[in-house]
């Protein structure tokens, strides 16, 4: 049975951007407000799943030529390297610090190394959820 998904696809085309924006907001909100890498990554995964539901796997492979397994590996690498980075300053593994910097344009900004660790979490969560869902979805037998 062939159905016309025009409404779903048109709505998805704008709504997915708003969900992705919200996931990025959640990712950066994590330090002082509810949010963080895990929920942000899941929200990004949800937006991608919506895209995969509205379109098919073949179209999405063209739109987003990303290997989600590599994304997981990259996320884990970032997570481990922020931990290893603390050795450069002679402090124990996974010590994190933060500071206030005066950036051009942005003004006084608090930058924390925990955000980099969160980025690793984010990429890993997106990679793992998408790998699970796509592996189930691609099974034709």
């Amino acid at each position: 049975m062939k159905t016309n998904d025009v409404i779903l696809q048109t709505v998805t085309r704008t709504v997915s951007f708003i969900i992705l924006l919200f996931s990025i907001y959640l990712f950066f909100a994590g330090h002082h407000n509810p949010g963080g890498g895990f929920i942000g990554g899941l929200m990004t995964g949800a937006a991608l799943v919506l895209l995969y539901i509205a379109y098919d796997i073949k179209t999405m492979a063209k739109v987003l030529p990303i290997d989600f397994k590599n994304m997981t590996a990259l996320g884990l690498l970032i997570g481990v390297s922020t931990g290893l980075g603390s050795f450069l300053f002679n402090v124990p593994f996974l010590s994190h610090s933060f500071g206030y910097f005066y950036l051009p344009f942005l003004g006084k900004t608090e930058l924390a190394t925990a955000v980099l660790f969160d980025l690793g979490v984010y990429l890993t969560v997106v990679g793992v959820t998408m790998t699970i869902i796509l592996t189930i979805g691609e099974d034709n037998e």
Partner: protein
Amino acid sequence: MAVQVLLNFTLAFIWMFLNQSWTPVDFVMGYIVGLALIFVLRRFLLTPFYFQKVIAITKLILIFIRELILSSVSVIKLILRPKMDFRPGIFALPTDLKSDWEITLLASLISLTPGTLSLEVSPEGNVLYIHAMDLPDTTEAINQIKDTFEKAIKEVTR
């Protein structure tokens, strides 16, 4: 293209709503985040990624400034000569540009560069008549310059 710009602005405003801060800095941050999202999902929208047009327009402006400086220098060299031994002339430039907007832009750019002046567009709109201050040695070179303008305009409009 306009739809994508509108979407980008909407995303920037949603970003400001989410962050509950209404400063220009947050608007620009939201705009950049939205631009990145549109870039990642650019193949999924029906029209080409709009920022390529913005880059093409910037390129056209930079090419125009470069030509302006180069031709100003050559005109200064001409007018500071003790003898007026250069030869002005009029030549026809066949152009592939179609729409009124493109031809007007090309003619304006040619007129704004010193040393050349667009006089007339042929009734069919495919030939531009251009007056050049020093023609004999530069016909080929000027045609080449028009190719750079024409190519840059095509990148903007197509």
